[in-house]
């Protein structure tokens, strides 16, 4: 029987949740006995190659590209998991939600002390994805099946949840693994 597939994505996050996945350390050798990896920033599979059992999402949605990728994951994954504070609540990037975008833009591209911008241009090339007005948690955009909290969730939390799902066991995480930080 073919192994189930796992895909991962980093949206508006810091990559820390992906680092926490890698913090399973030598258990990565056990993991690859259990699953194959599909689309993920840690490999070179840039588009889905087939149906995936589990999708792990780090980060919320801060631009149109994040929304596109998240919907693509929903379409291809049986189970979708929000991993970490940013996917679940928007996290630190959502601190911008209370501030008018123009103020933020001016701070970065016009008023910052080291800025050199004689023409006062803002980044606006068509190659750049449009920015959303606010940062959205993933479950406001698509249906999310599980939430693993923490900033980031500890490697043991991710490991135990993933193994339970992949081996059809109940997800029974002790308090130490689900308390926040």
């Amino acid at each position, binding site marked *: 029987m073919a192994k189930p597939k796992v895909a991962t994505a980093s949206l508006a996050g810091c990559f820390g949740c992906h680092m926490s996945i890698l*913090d399973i350390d*030598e258990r990565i050798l056990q993991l690859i006995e259990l699953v194959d990896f599909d689309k993920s*920033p840690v*490999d070179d599979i840039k588009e889905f190659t087939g149906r995936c059992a589990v999708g792990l999402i780090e980060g919320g949605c801060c631009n149109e590209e994040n929304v596109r990728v998240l919907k693509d994951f929903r379409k291809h994954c049986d189970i979708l998991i929000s991993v970490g504070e940013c996917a679940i609540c928007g996290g630190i990037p959502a601190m911008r939600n209370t501030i008018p975008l123009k103020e933020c833009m001016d701070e*970065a591209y016009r008023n910052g002390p080291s*800025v050199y911008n004689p023409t006062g241009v803002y980044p606006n090339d068509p190659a*750049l994805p*449009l920015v959303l*007005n606010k940062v959205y948690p993933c479950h406001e955009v698509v249906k999310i099946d599980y939430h693993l909290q923490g900033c*980031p969730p500890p490697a043991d939390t991710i490991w135990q949840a993933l193994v339970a799902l992949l081996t059809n066991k109940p997800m029974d995480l002790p308090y130490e693994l689900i308390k926040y930080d």
Partner: protein
Amino acid sequence: MSHASSPNMIVIEPVTRVEGHGKVTIQLDDERKVKQARLHIVEFRGFERFIHGRPFWEIPVLVQRLCGICPVSHHLAAAKAMDRIVGGENLTPTAEKMRRLMHYGQMLQSHALHFFHLCSPDFLFGFDADPAIRNVIGVAKKFPDLAVQGVMLRKYGQEIIKATAGKKIHGTGAIPGGVNKNLSIAERDVFLKDIEQIVAWSVGALKVAKDYTAANLKELADFGTFDSNHLSLVRADGAMDLYHGNLRAIDAKGKKIFDQVDYQNYLDYIVEEVKPWSYMKFPFIKSVGPENGWYRVGPLSRVNLCDFIPTPMAEAERKQFMALTKGAPNNITMAYHWTRMIELLHSAEVIRDLLHDKDLQGTDLVVKGERRREAVGLIEAPRGTLFHHYIVDDNDQIVRCNLIVSTTNNNTPMNRAVEKVAKDYLSGVEVTEGLLNRVEIAIRAYDPCLSCATHAMGQMPLVVEVVDAAGKVVGRGERGTRIG
């Protein structure tokens, strides 16, 4: 891997096996020759504005969320600035050594991660290998011993971070004026047990990088390569120091542009240009100007710039590396990997020395002095020089923040590398996946941290809708308006 948004445009998206979010566009002319190639940073965060109003002691914990690969760099650069805010920049020996241990632990884990988990597939399987196996899992299946060494090197660094900062990712160890814990004897002894093995594995990793570069020098010497200036911190005596020092910059031939500059005055030396096609700015050395003043940072620049490395094994390796160019700066892009592994070995040696230092068991952890309003904190992060600059008002709140992250410094160089590889390999030929992977290999050499680089605020939205799974609009934005 690629799709054409127009017949003459090749797009690589997302750039993979790098940290964060990037995209490459390659524009062809009617003869299918490469006209222009660019690396775009496609996300934004807005830290510089949204931390206004936060209390200053929160900042080292908050801003490290810029990056989950090198959170310690941001944690410590912010803490160094906050040391000056509280007048506590002359740390106790215990505090400074705990921070150094944390930082060199991070250098070990980050360099190991980049080399083994992200880049080794390109070296071990070849640039044109099947993308389905060209990843760390492919390495683990084909070269299990090497993969385990990479995993264990990274793990050791992460455990050092946990012991000094409280958590492997986004810890809390550094506070304004010091640290909040020392290293217990029990903790130390766990690390001492394995350190000789870590040093040995670091020597092995360096050998892989060195042998690979030597064996392929003919192709690699010109691969994405160009002359550039270099910038880093160096110690007062010219030694490599990744935690603290003064700024030094040289040109491509090794002539000093400035030396031993106090980084509190960085604004007199460095500015950042805004360009419309990337959310990441383009820094340059003020006195040289925007045209020629751009520079590289990171392992290659640090090895080029320092007069010596203050640990014996890494210093011997530095001499061997510099002999390749007869002591002149090495400008080969792919030499980043070799120098990164010299720093991996250096970090292992520094950790070994620190573990034998009894100051780590000291109990004098925090100092305070005369309060300041403004401060700059710099550190040599794994990817290069990292600038944090803050102004704090009388209510202890942040009123100004400026960040120049390591990868931003390498913005122009990465674009030069992308353009050179695109022009050298993609012009007028049938474009294959392996050829496009070469563009990414040039980017990976810089170990870019594109999450870090997305901190700047982005463009205004035009019209954007967020639609939920049921097709219901849950959010909508238009240019210049805010919505709820």
